[in-house]
């Protein structure tokens, strides 16, 4: 029994701390991969401090946490004191309960309801941008408040009620009694409450996601939005740093609270008394405290002013909304496109521009944010089918191509595509083609070349299939030559049968999304369908005994992401300047090299340096000879399906996953 409980305890600690240890170890990994530790390196820490967007998110998060903790501590303490002083018992217990509700309320509900309230309120007030730093701050204060109250109230109840009376009796005003006697008494609880509020605010994602506005992205949101590609290892470094900072805070607060330190303090005092020095004059101490307090307040105020001016709409502000990891950001010696644009703009037009660059994780996320009309962006970069939908719903502005002369460099293949047949709303940014990646050490070259490889029973337990319905069905439909946009349900049933067969035969190892990187890199899986650009990411990190190769099957999926201006745009002129800049040679090449996705821009794919940099193999894969690209694209690209059909497909998908 004793032994069992020891083992149990050991296991518990293992589960609690193993993830942290792994995080810590891999933050020092030389390679990008999570499967191989190729050597100790501080590379990712260096990367982290070069990643201006992430650092900005860290700064934002800290500003927010400091403001939210500060304000909620003051308000929460005041509220606790107010509740404590209430004479009516019923009112008191009712208020107690009401303050507890936000605490037990699921974050998602708090987030959505706050967003609705902000949007509604701003409609009433006639404001254009309903969500901003201020709304985010209000939301954070709201969910932090109950925790502060919960800390302070019990401490007040423990306090001898006669203490404030004694203070008044001895000449204090009621206000003075509060400051000089009550406040010092409840201070430990206030500090604990503040630390709690700070950490809560620091790691909130759900509520922030719903209530933040343009130009203010917090760290959790930024990390979430990176999931289009893998989370880069500099995030491990960041998480490690955050963990140790929080650990240090915790130790510090425990130390100041523990009896040991009280003894220590008592001893120090006794020593001072023995040495004949008088105790510190309270006046002096008050001045000291006052200085400290006003410094803290000043810092807080500065942070607020800083944050507000940051989000305040100065004359030239550009809000860009893009996929995570989808622009060259200065890491690993690359060009920081956003920064360069700002510098270039200021030089060119003689006035500064402030670019708020934010990221999203899926087209649907982006659509949801925009359709609430809660925030305004000037440039967005959605995918093709989403562009079609947004044009349909009048959510995009026609572009003035006179302001985008660099549009001339876009390849003719990218004109008149289905999502924007008249080329009025979009400028292609990058495109990708799905191919099959395989490990040549496992797979026989003769078996490659078509979708059949993913159904080949020779490779039982080696195939990684997409873990989302559209892409998984796609593989089966391309294989069978079915139109991936068909509205004929029997064709979808047919595709399901094919997927069932694939599953039953045991070739599928698992259904994956981002895990595909690590599984392929480590050789855990040998066959997977994914985007050409991502193949190169895997290639970089493959383990020694793995030899990844890539080919395109006869029919496959294409997608195009294009730059658009949404109707909520506040500054179309600068937005078009930005789009034009993105098409110019230097940033366009930097982006293509950074993302590994193919560029529709002739300035890129015809550029010698770019071709050299990528190498002939990559050029072949990224820019294969497709013959009539637009025809193939229009045939094979996914289009928006109506919701009934999507529902039907999802039900088929569930059937597959359950069986």
């Amino acid at each position, binding site marked *: 029994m004793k032994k069992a409980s020891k083992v149990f305890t050991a296991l518990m600690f293992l589960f609690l701390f193993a993830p942290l240890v792994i995080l810590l170890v891999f933050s020092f990994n030389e390679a990008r991969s999570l499967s191989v530790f190729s050597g100790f390196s501080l590379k990712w820490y260096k990367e982290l401090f070069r990643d201006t967007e992430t650092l900005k998110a860290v700064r934002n998060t800290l500003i927010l946490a400091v403001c939210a903790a500060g304000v909620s501590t003051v308000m929460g303490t005041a509220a606790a004191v107010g509740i404590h002083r209430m004479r009516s018992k019923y009112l008191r217990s009712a208020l107690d309960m009401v303050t507890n509700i936000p605490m037990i309320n699921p974050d998602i509900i708090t987030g959505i309801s706050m967003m609705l309230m902000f949007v509604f309120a701003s409609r009433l007030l006639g404001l254009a941008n309903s969500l901003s730093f201020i709304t985010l701050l209000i939301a954070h204060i709201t969910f932090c408040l109950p925790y502060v109250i919960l800390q302070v109230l019990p401490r007040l109840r423990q306090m001898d009620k006669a203490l404030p009376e004694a203070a008044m009796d001895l000449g204090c*005003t009621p206000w003075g009694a509060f400051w000089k*006697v009550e406040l010092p008494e409840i201070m430990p609880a206030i500090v604990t409450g503040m630390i709690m509020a700070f950490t809560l605010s620091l790691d909130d994602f759900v509520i922030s996601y719903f209530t933040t506005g343009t130009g203010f992205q917090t760290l959790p949101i930024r990390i979430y939005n990176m999931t289009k590609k893998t989370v880069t290892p500099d995030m491990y470094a960041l998480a490690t740093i955050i963990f140790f900072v929080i650990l240090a805070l915790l130790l510090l607060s425990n130390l100041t609270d523990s009896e040991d330190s009280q003894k220590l303090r008592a001893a120090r005092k006794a020593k001072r008394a023995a040495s004949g020095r008088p105790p510190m004059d309270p006046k002096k101490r008050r001045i000291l405290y006052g200085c400290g307090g006003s410094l803290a307040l000043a810092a807080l105020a500065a942070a607020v002013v800083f944050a507000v001016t940051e989000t305040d709409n100065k004359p030239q502000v550009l809000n860009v909304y893009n996929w995570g990891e989808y622009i060259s950001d200065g890491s690993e010696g690359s060009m920081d496109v956003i920064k360069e644009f700002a510098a270039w703009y200021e030089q060119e037009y003689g006035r500064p521009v402030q670019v708020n660059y934010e990221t999203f994780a899926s087209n649907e996320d982006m659509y949801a944010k925009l359709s609430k009309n809660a925030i305004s962006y000037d440039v967005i970069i959605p995918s093709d089918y989403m562009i079609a939908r947004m044009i349909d719903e009048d959510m995009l502005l026609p572009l003035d191509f006179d302001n985008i002369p660099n549009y001339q460099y876009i390849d003719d293949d990218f004109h008149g595509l289905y999502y924007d047949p008249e080329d009025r709303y979009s400028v292609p940014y990058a495109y990708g083609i799905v191919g099959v990646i395989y490990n040549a050490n496992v797979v026989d070259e003769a078996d490659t070349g078509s979708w059949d490889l993913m159904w080949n029973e020779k490779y039982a337990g080696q195939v990684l299939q997409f873990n989302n319905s559209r892409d998984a069905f796609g593989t089966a439909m391309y294989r069978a030559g079915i139109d991936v946009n068909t509205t004929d349900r029997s064709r979808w049933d047919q595709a399901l049968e094919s997927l069932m067969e694939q599953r039953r035969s045991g070739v599928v190892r698992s259904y994956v999304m981002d895990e595909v990187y690590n599984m392929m890199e480590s050789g855990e899986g040998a066959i997977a369908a994914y985007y050409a650009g991502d193949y190169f990411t895997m290639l970089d990190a493959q383990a020694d005994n793995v030899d990844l190769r890539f080919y395109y099957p006869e029919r496959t999926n294409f997608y195009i992401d294009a730059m658009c201006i949404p109707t909520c745009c506040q500054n179309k002129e600068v937005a078009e300047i930005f789009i034009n800049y993105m098409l110019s040679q230097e940033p366009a090449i930097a982006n293509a090299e950074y993302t590994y996705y193919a560029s529709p821009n002739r300035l890129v794919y015809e550029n010698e340096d770019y071709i050299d940099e990528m190498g002939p193999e990559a050029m072949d894969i990224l820019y294969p000879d497709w013959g009539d690209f637009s025809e193939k694209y229009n045939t094979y690209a996914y289009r928006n399906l109506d919701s009934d059909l999507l529902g039907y497909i999802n039900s088929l998908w569930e059937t597959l996953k359950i069986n």
Partner: protein
Amino acid sequence: MDKIIELKNITKSFDGEVVLDNISLDIYDNEFITLLGPSGCGKTTTLRLIGGFETPDSGDVLFMGERINDVPPHKRNVNTVFQRYALFPHLNVYENVAFPLRERKTPRDEIDQRVSEMLSMVALKGFEHRAVTSLSGGQQQRVAIARALVGKPRVLLLDEPLAALDLKLRKDMQQELKNIQKATGITFVFVTHDQEEALSMSDTIVVMSEGRIQQIGSSQDVYNEPKNAFVADFIGESNIVDGVMLRDRCVSFSGHTFQCVDGGFEPNEPVDVVVRPEDVDIVAEDKGMLRGVVTSVTFMGVHYEVIVDIGGFKWMIQTTDFVDVDEHIGLYIEPDAIHIMKKSEYSGLYGDYASFSNEFDELAEAESEGEQ
């Protein structure tokens, strides 16, 4: 002597419950006055009215002739020693005592001098830098007194300050408080439910019950000349029996007519008769004015406590003579040991020792302390 505080027709109720029912009280300069009564009698509320923590529903509080009903506590020249001391835990002994002086922006040298004066008065020199939480109950008590006196108030209010101390310490502190009061000449208003404490310390005792003042007088007055059965019973032990005042200085009770020293009643007026247990002498049965049977004897150290059944009414007698249970004895009472009181609402409620036992008394006391 000058009146320093006057309470005039004060009524106060909490949540519809009357706590003070039209009380009036004068407090004179330089006196040690005690508010005495069982818990819930309104004595603490009276103290809080003087301190400024409560305002009367009707009536006036006067300080040196000036109405101070609406003057907040910090503007009254009155300080309080709280029941559980209410020392400030985040300040050391020195800072606790210095607190009122700092509030008044007293110069540093003067603070130093007065704090050390106060601490030597309460015998706590050398404790300046100790944390108040590290002190014993008695030491904390002294700090509280020093803190309340350092500002030289005209009046010091003490709310059952000794209740939390053990018996020995309590006796010492009673003496010390009395000495401090004499030395400083400050008016002390002392609240207690302990009648012995009240008798030994006070110049004036105010006996309260159910929100009303029952009697005001010196210790001897309230003991020897209680106004009604409540006062007689609450202060010391009393045998209270129904009697009839036949004429001046002649009263009949328990089937016997006694000589007494009181007069001024209607002929044949029904009255309450008080006889203190220590004033009754035990004599042979045939020589006694009253005759009875001993039902219990308890040895108390200095004397025996004897319960005697006289015609169904149980008397308590304190005597140094030993008698046995079931012994038939006679009782002899001197005329000046008999105190006559007018009938009151308390008549018949007290003074019979039929249900008396020491245990019961202790239980009741513990209960009333618990309520505090």
